């Protein structure tokens, strides 16, 4: 056993070195990376400089041209602060709602045996194939008739339950050994306590994946929040961005500055949790 264990260590101690044969590969990768990183670089750097200076200097502007004017212009063009708040409320409530409804639904679809469970599961999965954008007219009428137009709840309510997180959690719960559930129920734990204290902790990483998916989905929503809200202060940052683009179309630097502010949380999330995303994706997405 110890001999087997020592092989990777020996391999690791031999530092990998760049061989000539790897150079074309490296070249292609760096080229691709530069092209893909370019819009990110623009987002976070050019907002701090005047547009002209940015291009004239060959994309590396002198620090003397540093300015915060673009951020001021972006913040005066749209009520970004207020919209940030709206977006955060939408994200928190919608994510919480989806987590609760999907965990409950996934539990009901995996553990107890009941008549109609198969059909119920098929109906939930079928929602994944229905394009959400095709439902906006009836939903617009429905939510308006509930008196929720132009409110935060109007943005959230159609998305309190969603097929994809239910599917993710169902797959996770179904991969648990059934004995865990049986043991807990035999010990006298109710269904809710079993879900909360036994099932969810056992699927921690998939639950985290589902939460991250829901949070990004809520933060990134555009079409529905655009339709159901009118007043600028009730709109989310994503809708605010589209207003910014149309009002500042002649000043790209202000657009970049505003977008940078909107993107900061998700970019940090991706950089910090990149390792988790890599492993979480394989468990969450691929059955």
């Amino acid at each position, binding site marked *: 056993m110890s001999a087997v264990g020592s092989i990777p260590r020996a391999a690791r101690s031999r530092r*990998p070195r*760049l061989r000539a044969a790897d150079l074309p*590969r490296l070249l*292609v*990768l760096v080229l*691709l990376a530069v092209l*893909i990183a370019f*819009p*990110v670089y*623009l*987002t976070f750097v050019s907002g701090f400089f005047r547009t002209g200076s*940015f291009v004239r200097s060959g994309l590396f502007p002198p620090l003397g041209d540093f300015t915060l004017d673009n951020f001021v212009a972006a913040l005066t063009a749209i009520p970004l602060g207020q919209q940030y708040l709206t977006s955060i409320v939408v994200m928190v409530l919608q994510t919480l709602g989806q987590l609760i*409804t999907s965990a*409950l*639904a996934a539990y*009901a*679809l995996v553990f107890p*045996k*009941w008549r109609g469970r198969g059909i*119920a599961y098929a*109906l*939930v999965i079928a*929602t994944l194939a*229905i394009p959400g*954008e*095709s*439902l906006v*007219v*009836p*939903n*617009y009428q*429905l939510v308006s008739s509930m008196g929720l137009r132009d409110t935060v709840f109007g943005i959230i309510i159609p998305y309190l*339950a969603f097929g994809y997180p*239910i599917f993710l959690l169902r797959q996770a719960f179904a991969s648990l050994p059934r004995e865990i559930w*049986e043991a807990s129920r*035999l010990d006298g734990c*109710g*269904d809710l306590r079993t879900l909360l204290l036994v099932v969810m902790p056992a699927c921690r990483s998939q639950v985290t994946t589902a939460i991250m998916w829901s949070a990004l989905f809520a933060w*990134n929503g*555009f*079409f529905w929040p*655009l*339709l159901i809200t009118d007043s600028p202060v009730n709109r989310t940052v*994503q809708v605010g*961005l*589209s207003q910014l*683009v149309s009002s500042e*179309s002649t*000043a*790209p630097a202000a657009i970049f500055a505003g*977008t940078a502010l*909107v993107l900061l949380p*998700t*970019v940090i999330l*991706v950089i910090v949790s*990149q390792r988790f*995303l890599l492993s*979480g*994706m394989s468990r969450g*997405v691929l059955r």
Partner: protein
Amino acid sequence: MTQTTLTRRPDRPGEAPADGRGGSPSRRARNGIRAGIGPWMLLPAGALLAVFLYGPLVTGVRLSLFGTDLFGDPTRFVGLQNYLTLLAQPSFWQVVGTTLLIATLSMSMSVGVALTAVILLRKWIPGRGVLRVVFSLPFAYSAASASAIFSGMFAPAAGVVNQILGHAGIGAVPWLQQPGWAIFTIALTTAWYELGFAFLVLAAAMRTLPPEVIEAAELDGASGLRFVRSILVPLLSPSLFFLLVTQTISGLQTFTQVRILTGGGPAGGTTTLVYQLYMYAFGQGTPDYGRASVVAVVLVLIVALVTWLQFRFINRRVTA
């Protein structure tokens, strides 16, 4: 609390013999489990999906069969007339074509680049960790933020790309001013921000490949493109198929990019199905919910058809 211990076995005496696997420890253990609220826990999600998904689906079909008055309310039953009017318009078929083109172009660009990056990053190379972060970064962008950035990049005069091209002595490209270019730019924007997700999914799948198979293939002398084509791509095919289906579906629903980058123009050249739906229902003085609903139904049918075709003709070739 009368504590009626409802057990499954007495309820259904015929169940155990019919199921040949009876007698396992788990089966015996279930005898003692009281029926709880378990099945009812589906209710919150089920009710919400019924009200905000299946209900609107039915309402949408119904609306598509009615005429609409000036306030957008349904007036009288017109049968399939809304469909016939719309399908007779050449401009509608152009919208369908644009939608399919954007979906196909953006999906193939993002999956293609992501696959290339993942394959090239399979073995160690200096800066591999940084490169991985770079390829995942577009995942942080929403459709709206990617569109905002690309609208600044590809603006006609003040745009960074045309200015760089100008310095290089190349004339300005009408990125968003000519229908053909505008479709390409919209697809490029979509491909760019979808790339992050595609990369994460493929990189995660690459990690779970059985090392024995790869090593054996390498020992056999499989190398280069042949190795990629006959070993890697088949092994990655479940994830590739997943990306193909999901990114095509989201491409068929393209709206945000069109709304922010072109507003459907020039001359309606970048109007997609969802953008058309939006214009009928919300984009003009008098809402025409009837026609918007026809577009919605057509969208549902196209998504179903494309997904079915993909499962029918491509899924068969997916191994594992």
